[in-house]
């Protein structure tokens, strides 16, 4: 197992001013290259807060977030955003595709403002879509696709920039069983030695498919188990 790609060190997140809500309390976690892990817990356990912090979409009230060796919570927004775009790929429960863009356009969005030619963006996006078996649907808009297909487009968008970590929030939550299984197969296929995949879910079947399971309750990590072979 390599150096940590993403790490939280004594991270707490408190919301509110008059009434304080401790969403996360003194959490430390390292995610290393090659890991396929899940963060599970009941509603209100702090897993979404954890995902926001891991994805650098939110900043901790205290503690440190590092992407590789870079401490991100002190960086200015532009720098932090650039790092987020390079290091992290997101998949959301509600897909969050831009409705007026085609599948290809949605995937290409992840490659904008990176000094890539249009041709290069297109080539890489088509490759990503091929990987999720949607190469022939690249010119379709989200409204013309099923939920499972939309989620596969979202996965293509998450991996097209070759991030260090793919963070997926309830990736099968809005899918039927067949599509959910298909999406889980894709995640399993995305595992590599350079990349970590982290699924956040309350679904124990999803958690069961991963190698490492982190359990959360009341804003704290209450379990960190290895379930499969550690690569």
């Amino acid at each position, binding site marked *: 197992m390599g150096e940590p790609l993403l790490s939280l060190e004594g991270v707490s997140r408190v919301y509110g001013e008059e009434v304080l809500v401790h969403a996360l309390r003194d959490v430390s976690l390292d995610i290393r290259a090659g890991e396929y892990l899940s963060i599970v817990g009941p509603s209100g356990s702090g897993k979404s807060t954890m995902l926001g912090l891991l994805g650098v*979409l939110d900043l901790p009230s205290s503690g440190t977030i590092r992407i590789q060796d870079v401490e991100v919570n002190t960086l200015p927004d532009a720098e932090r955003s650039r790092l987020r775009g390079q290091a992290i790929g997101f998949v959301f429960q509600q897909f*969050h*595709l*831009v409705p*007026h863009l085609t599948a290809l356009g949605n995937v290409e969005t992840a490659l904008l403002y990176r000094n890539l030619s249009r041709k290069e963006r297109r080539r890489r996006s088509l490759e990503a879509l091929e990987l999720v078996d949607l190469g022939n649907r690249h010119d379709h808009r989200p409204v013309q696709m099923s939920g499972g297909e939309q989620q596969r487009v979202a996965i293509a*968008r998450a991996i097209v920039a070759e991030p260090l970590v793919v963070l997926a929030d309830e990736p099968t939550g809005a899918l039927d069983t067949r599509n959910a299984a298909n999406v889980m197969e894709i995640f399993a296929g995305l595992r590599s030695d350079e990349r970590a995949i982290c699924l956040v879910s*309350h679904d124990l079947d999803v958690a069961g498919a991963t190698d490492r399971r982190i359990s959360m309750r009341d804003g704290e990590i209450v379990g960190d188990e290895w379930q499969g072979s550690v690569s």
Partner: protein
Amino acid sequence: MRRFRELVGVALAGLTARKIRTFLIMLGPILGVAAIVSAIGINESSKGDLKAKLRELGTDLIVANAQDQIGGFGSNPRIPEEATARVARLPDVVSVSATLQLSNIVTLPFAEASDYYRAFPVPVIATTLELPATLEVPLVSGRFLNDYDESSGARVAVIGKDLANEYGYMANEPRSIELNGISYGVVGVLDYVLLEPSMDSAVFITFANAVEDWDIEEPDPSRLYIRAPTNTKYVAEEIPTVVSLGGPDGANTSVPTDLLDAQSQVDENLNNLTKMMGGLALVVGGVGIANVMSISVIQRSSEIGIRRALGHSRGTIALQFLFEALVVGVLGGILGAGTGAGVVWLVSEMRGYTMILSVSGLFRWALVSVAVAVVAGLYPSNKAARLEPLETLRLG
């Protein structure tokens, strides 16, 4: 440059995705710019005709009309003949013509047409020989009255262009007309006199003929036309004194083109008013852009959230929305300028104006539209940039 192109691409994709909404927010700048461009263009075009007229007439022609100092009822004031020579000697005066309109003369193209033409009096004007030169009006055909006509008393006449048309007079045709039964040979046709349209259907004869054939006693004119290219205003003020020399005869003077000039000044005020109204329309358009784009930011919060998650910074998001406003301003400006130009063309065609439209003016107002749109886009762009991605993405 690549980043700029990408931003424009994203902005265009955002705008074309909601075509009707985009068109509606573009209506503000379109109407504002079109209103200003058409108002100014129509005004300029109508004023352009006035200016062309002014150029043609010159602004240095003075008209002096005889005025009875006592102002008695029924008086028929005249300017003494020698006063004409005094006016001609003024330093700034280059040309003077004297005229006297004769009354109660029945003019006929030929004697047999008397029944028909008796009902239509034609002005008969006794004039000095310099009239075409002073008015700067050429002859359409033939020649004007000359020294020989004046000294010999030959009965010759020059007619106005409208009269020539009415009489079916052909160029250089040997023809005579009847003035109270006295035959006059037509030697020339005077072109249109813009300043004195009544001359277009008048008959011009020499003062020698006027004294000989009509009972006017002295060849004293009732009106002088004076061309003074320099100090026109001062010459006009001086002429009454030069004419009267303290005696009972007098004259009042006017510079006819002053009236046209004043007319174009009035139009300038109208111009400013329409500019203000167009400006107001643009401001209202700007408020519309800010309003609709702010609503759009809320509607597109999920898109903003995902873009933030994909690594777009707050600044990039702000620029994306600012570019949308910019595109609205540019397209609105271009369409508005085009619409305005179309309106100016249509009105010019309908009213017979010579269309005058300044390209730099079109460009300037299109730029104002861009500026208004960008300023209007500042608030929604800032609002979009400040959205917290976590709040818009609604995580599990």
